[in-house]
């Protein structure tokens, strides 16, 4: 009979090693998660404070702190990957090599144990990975967004206050700036006709840089509606894109002509991607 010629494989030490390794792996990942959560929880209010107190329009201090935190999370992920390679994958390969063929009955219990071990470790790793990603998102959203609308309205107010307070550098006559300019612009003196050069304030220049972001903020609900639609409702995308560009053009009307060409490009790219 077939089974008489097969010695049953017996290796309780291996089963113990499997159990012990799994426990160590779970403990290890648990410690990394605890450290990461501790860091993330303490960092969130700090990120918010740093963002709010920073006068830099580009909020670089907050950006650098965020990158540092994400760098540490990635270090932990890297550490887990290395440990997985060295202690789980290598262990399983080495152990399987010592077992009788999987096609025989002899080592069945051990193959099953290794399989269960691999699955348990893999599932635990995915849980770890999800937790990391969750905290990465929390950190990225911690500071919220700049109130671009308020910044814009302030610049509009400042402009209304200064627009008629300029004098021609040639004849001293009063020059009223016809509209809000965002770059250096030639302005004509109505009295002596001399071309003066108007240099906008730093704040006005920033309005141009932040215009699209403000337009996106104003139409975020439309983009969200498209992203939430199942299946994807392309009409919603077109509505969002048109609305976003309309808002953008309201903020910087001089760029409307160029923006239209860009709008066409984005629309075409989106449609092409949908057809793929």
């Amino acid at each position, binding site marked *: 009979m077939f089974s008489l010629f097969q010695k049953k494989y017996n290796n309780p030490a291996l089963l113990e090693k499997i159990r012990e390794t799994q426990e160590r792996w779970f403990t290890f990942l648990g410690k990394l998660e605890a*450290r990461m959560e501790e860091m993330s929880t*303490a960092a969130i209010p700090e990120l918010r404070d*740093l963002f709010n107190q920073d006068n*830099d329009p580009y909020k670089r201090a907050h950006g650098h702190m965020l990158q540092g935190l994400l760098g540490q999370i990635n270090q932990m992920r890297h550490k887990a990957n290395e440990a997985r390679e060295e202690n789980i994958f290598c262990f399983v390969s080495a152990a399987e090599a010592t077992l009788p063929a999987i096609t025989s009955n002899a080592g069945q219990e051990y193959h099953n144990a290794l399989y269960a071990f691999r699955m348990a470790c893999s599932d635990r790793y995915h849980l770890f990975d999800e937790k990391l990603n969750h905290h990465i998102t929390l950190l990225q959203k911690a500071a919220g967004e700049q109130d671009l609308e308020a910044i814009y309205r302030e610049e509009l107010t400042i402009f209304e206050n200064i627009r008629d307070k300029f004098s021609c550098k040639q004849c001293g006559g009063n020059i009223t700036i016809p509209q809000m300019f965002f770059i250096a612009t030639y302005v*004509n003196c109505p009295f002596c006709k001399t*071309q*003066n050069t108007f*240099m906008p*304030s*730093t704040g006005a220049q920033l309005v141009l840089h932040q215009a699209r972001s403000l337009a996106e903020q104003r139409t975020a609900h439309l983009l969200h509606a498209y992203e939430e639609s199942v299946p994807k409702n392309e009409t919603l995308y077109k509505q969002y894109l048109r609305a976003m560009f309309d808002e953008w053009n309201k903020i910087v009307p001089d760029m409307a002509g160029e923006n239209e060409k860009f709008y066409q490009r984005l629309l075409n790219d989106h449609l092409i991607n949908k057809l793929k």
Partner: protein
Amino acid sequence: MSQEENKRTLTYLERLKQKAATQENYGGEVVKEDAKMKVRDCPECGAGRAYQHGLTACAYCGFVFMDVKLTDGVHIKKENNS
């Protein structure tokens, strides 16, 4: 979590925050400047540049302010060529 570990995390965070808040950013700080008006007169004859004579050359002595062909831009147009 132990006191020791907590201290480790908080020390790290404090150092990170300090570094982020105080380090020099590439390109420097954004200096807030007010709007202002300037003028460039002809360096040869001192005349001002009048709109109807264009931006690129002096109407009076021919001095070339800019040796380029202006195209239709945002506010500057082809008509602004002298």
